[in-house]
């Protein structure tokens, strides 16, 4: 134990906390020493003790003063002996009344601040024992005292540190901890003002972060001045600490010319300052400074203590910064993990999940991250059937995560997994990466699931839709198209599919039903017959048709059934067929909803989601379009056929002695009214007219011209005998009534039967000349080409006559007959002639059939142009 003398100035006016505790500790300390018996002790022995021993008589006069007492109290033995103890040693922290000094009490023990010779107070632990004479009477007092200032200071430092430790441990932020730490240090180590400066790590500028003081006006002024300062290394007290990277002790700041806050310090009465760096791995991150109003001498142990506190605060700053950064980066990471659509999981070495983000939770099919992380691996895995892209079982051992756990760096895999519960197939692009510890062992595997189900479904859907397009369009029959639609939906989109349409009267009729189990088709059909949906029902099928809005019943629960969210017919299907998930999508074409398609999965099939609904709508749209096309086509064909028939004589008249056969083939699919026509009628008195013609163009326009032509000819034929005149009349009518140059070509044959003769008069107006086959003779053309009609006001028309002998045959035809020939019109015409030539002796209908077969039969496609033909034969 060192002697007093380097002790503190000004300690004396402070109180010690918990004095009694310290006193008892001191007692123990001293009692551990050998007992001292005063009588007969050699002064020498006394002088060896590091204990000040002072003996007094009962009057207080010093009788003994050992060497350590000289050191501790500053009085030499010679000076001391003989003087009264109270004269030598004033007790400063008790209420000393002369004669009542603790030092004169025969039995007393405790800590006392005792004024030494130089005026400084010595903190001493004093223990008084009575000096007894051999008779046992008390004759004096032996006072043993030790300097406990150092010990107390040490304890104070320990206490300060432990307080700071507690404060730092309790605090979350430096803002909260710093003022409390400063206060604890000041109060414990007896400083009047403390400040913490922090350095900006980038700019290397120090700023005052926290200050503690007693709260006087002047101190607040000093605090404000401190807070206003920004110090670079080398400037001001804190700056100098940074520059020297070491503690500084300034005995009196007022005499330090480099001290910047001198005025404020002066006003606050501050004198001594201690400043030390807060170091962190050799780098100064801050400075603490403490000021005392008392003048204090440099105290290295104080500096040591402060450096410990400084590093504690440094670590706190470090930890908080790191925690904040970690928290920030963790939050950021969590946010990123949760934000990405990628499923991310972390597996421990045993394959168990340590982490999963929400996307992964969804992909794996759990409701919450907690539920997933809490589930045993086997349970998680048992939910799926793991397949490769093609649908073959995928060995669990080859999963990227498992391979990563074995330390491999597996390639990305497309994994298809079937959720056992729903039967739903999902696809993920799965990649995994191992993370190793320092020993090279796998710590965990990070899995990334990129859900590509939507893409896969789209691809699949696009493929299916591409396939069904042709399948649907290959039928031009409306109902057949819709039946195909139902068949196509099963089993790829549904286990059960019903297509219903609403007729003109509003009744909804189930047109087609398909089920993956053919046995159930019959049941579905029976249900449909039994439950006719009420078109006004505000739910299900009728509602979908009425509003043209799809409905999705992802899970058909009994509750939903009770709430009547489905119409009666769908309801009964659901109940009888055990359907699980239902979608009803409208069939819409040309902005009209004309029906609906209901699709469903049967238990325990998968549940439909929005993606499925979109797909179903797509399917329905296509189906509806094709069906509507088919219906339009059917309607148009019906109209065209009706119109066409109105332009052709329903039956040909019977002409005595003659045979007549007519043939007509509409071009293409027959959905448009063609421009070809023929007519056979009587003009009276054994006169007959055969007309064949071709109106330019197609459709209603052409039909109009055809009608005009046909009836004009009929009317004119009653007035005019000469065919050329009939056709001129027609030409005028066309020119008058049509300004659109919708011309026509006509061949008109007048047949005059008289006296067993059959004379024909032929006029061609832009139309091919008829062919005449003389019985047993060559095939020749009759008539002379004339101008087409409807364009020029002065057509060139000629009447040519030809007599028909028995068996002679004349064929009137339109271009389509010969033009369609694969080798050209000329060959077509030649073929016609040769067929005609070789069929001598056949009846008119038989000849017509033969010509048809020869010229049209070879075709695989419908004729491109209309074909009309009239065969006239004189009976042999």
């Amino acid at each position, binding site marked *: 134990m060192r002697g007093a003398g380097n002790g503190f100035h000004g300690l004396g006016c402070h109180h010690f906390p918990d004095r009694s505790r310290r006193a008892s500790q001191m007692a123990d300390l001293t009692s551990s020493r050998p007992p001292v018996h005063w009588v007969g002790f050699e002064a020498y022995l006394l002088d060896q003790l590091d204990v000040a021993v002072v003996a007094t008589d009962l009057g207080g006069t010093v009788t003994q003063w050992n060497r350590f007492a000289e050191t501790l109290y500053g009085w030499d033995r010679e000076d001391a002996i003989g003087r009264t103890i109270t004269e030598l040693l004033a007790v400063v922290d008790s209420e000393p009344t002369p004669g009542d000094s603790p030092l004169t009490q025969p039995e007393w023990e405790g800590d006392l601040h005792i004024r030494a010779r130089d005026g400084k107070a010595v903190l001493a632990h004093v223990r008084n024992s009575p000096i007894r004479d051999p008779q046992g009477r008390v004759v004096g007092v032996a006072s043993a005292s030790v300097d406990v200032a150092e010990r107390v200071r040490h304890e104070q430092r320990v206490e300060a540190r432990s307080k700071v430790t507690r404060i730092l441990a309790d605090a979350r932020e430096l803002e909260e901890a710093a003022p409390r730490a400063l206060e604890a240090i000041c109060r414990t180590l007896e400083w009047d003002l403390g400040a913490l400066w922090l350095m900006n790590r980038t700019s290397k500028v120090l700023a005052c972060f926290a200050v503690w003081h007693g709260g006087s006006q002047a101190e607040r002024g000093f605090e404000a001045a401190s807070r206003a300062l920004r110090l670079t290394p080398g400037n001001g007290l804190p700056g100098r600490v940074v520059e020297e990277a070491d503690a500084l002790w300034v005995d009196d700041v007022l005499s330090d010319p480099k001290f910047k806050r001198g005025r404020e310090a002066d006003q606050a009465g501050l004198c001594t300052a201690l400043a030390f760096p807060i170091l962190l791995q050799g780098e100064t991150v801050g400075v603490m400074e403490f000021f005392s109003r008392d003048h204090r001498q440099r105290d290295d142990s104080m500096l040591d203590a402060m450096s410990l506190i400084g590093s504690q605060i440094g670590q706190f700053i470090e930890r908080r910064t790191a925690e904040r950064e970690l928290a920030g980066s963790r939050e950021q990471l969590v946010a990123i993990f949760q934000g990405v659509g990628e499923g991310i999981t972390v597996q421990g070495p045993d394959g168990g999940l340590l982490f999963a983000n929400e996307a992964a939770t969804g992909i794996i099919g759990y409701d919450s991250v907690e539920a997933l992380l809490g589930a045993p691996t086997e349970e998680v895995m048992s939910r799926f059937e793991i397949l490769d892209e093609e649908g073959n079982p995928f060995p669990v051992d080859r999963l990227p995560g498992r391979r990563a756990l074995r330390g491999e760096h597996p390639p990305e895999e497309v994994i298809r997994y079937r959720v056992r519960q729903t039967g739903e197939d999902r696809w993920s692009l799965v990649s995994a990466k191992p993370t190793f510890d320092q020993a090279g062992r796998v710590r965990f595997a990070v899995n990334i699931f990129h859900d590509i189900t939507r893409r896969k479904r789209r691809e699949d859907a696009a493929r299916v839709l591409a396939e069904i397009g042709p399948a649907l369009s290959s039928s031009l029959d409306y109902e057949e198209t819709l039946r195909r639609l139902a068949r196509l939906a099963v089993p790829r989109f549904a286990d059960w599919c019903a297509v219903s349409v609403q007729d003109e009267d509003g009744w909804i009729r189930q047109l087609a039903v398909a089920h993956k189990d053919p046995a159930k088709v019959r049941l579905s059909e029976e249900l449909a017959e039994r439950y006719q949906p009420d078109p006004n029902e505000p739910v299900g099928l009728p509602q979908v048709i009425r509003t043209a809005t799809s409905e999705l019943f992802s899970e058909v629960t009994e509750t939903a059934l009770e709430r009547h969210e489905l119409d009666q017919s769908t309801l009964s299907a659901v109940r009888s067929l055990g359907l699980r998930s239902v979608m009803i999508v409208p069939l819409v074409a040309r902005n009209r909803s004309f029906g609906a398609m209901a699709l469903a999965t049967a238990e325990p099939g998968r549940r439909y989601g929005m993606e499925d609904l979109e797909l179903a709508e797509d399917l329905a749209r296509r189906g509806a379009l094709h069906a509507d096309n088919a219906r339009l086509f059917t309607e148009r064909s019906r109209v065209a056929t009706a119109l066409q028939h109105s332009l052709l004589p329903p039956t040909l008249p019977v002409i005595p002695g003659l045979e007549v056969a007519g043939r007509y083939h509409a071009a293409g699919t027959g959905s448009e009214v063609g421009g070809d026509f023929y007519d056979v009628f009587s003009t009276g008195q054994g006169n007959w007219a055969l007309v064949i013609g071709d109106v*330019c163009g197609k459709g209603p326009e052409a039909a109009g011209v055809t009608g005009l032509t046909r009836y004009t000819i009929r009317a004119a034929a009653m007035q005019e005998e000469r065919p050329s005149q009939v056709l001129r009349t027609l030409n005028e009518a066309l020119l008058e009534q049509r300004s659109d140059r919708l011309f026509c*070509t006509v061949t008109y044959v007048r047949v005059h039967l008289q006296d067993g003769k059959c004379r024909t008069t032929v006029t061609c107006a832009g139309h091919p000349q008829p062919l005449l086959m003389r019985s047993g003779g060559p095939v020749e053309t009759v008539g002379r080409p004339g101008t087409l009609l409807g364009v020029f006001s002065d057509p060139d028309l000629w009447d040519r006559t030809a007599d028909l002998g028995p068996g002679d045959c004349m064929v009137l035809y339109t271009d389509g007959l010969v033009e369609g020939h694969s080798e050209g019109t000329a060959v077509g015409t030649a073929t016609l002639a040769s067929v005609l030539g070789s069929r001598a002796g056949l009846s008119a209908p038989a000849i017509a059939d033969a010509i048809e077969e020869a010229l049209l039969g070879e075709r695989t496609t419908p004729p491109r142009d209309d074909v009309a033909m009239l065969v006239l034969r004189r009976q042999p």
Partner: protein
Amino acid sequence: MNHARALVRERGDRTVVELAGELDLSSVSVIEQELLAIEASSPRDLVLDLRGLSFIDSSGLRLILETDSRARIDGRVLELIPGSEKVHRVFLITLLDRRLNFVTDGEFR
């Protein structure tokens, strides 16, 4: 389908439109638009060269009749260079060979 195409070239003081392919209902409107554009942009006489046509139907015929009619109204000359036998047969049957201004390629030169 071998739809009709029109190739326009200037020869001397005339605009020659060479028609090729099949001139039928499905292609007349395209050719008609081209002809109308040519007529609108040039006051010169017009030659329709039908030698490249492989087929012509009544709609094609109507197109030529209307072009001829416009030419008469506009006071320009429309000349036609006859096409193949098959194509020209249509003009012979309808007697349009007499009504339209057919020239031979030689005459035209």
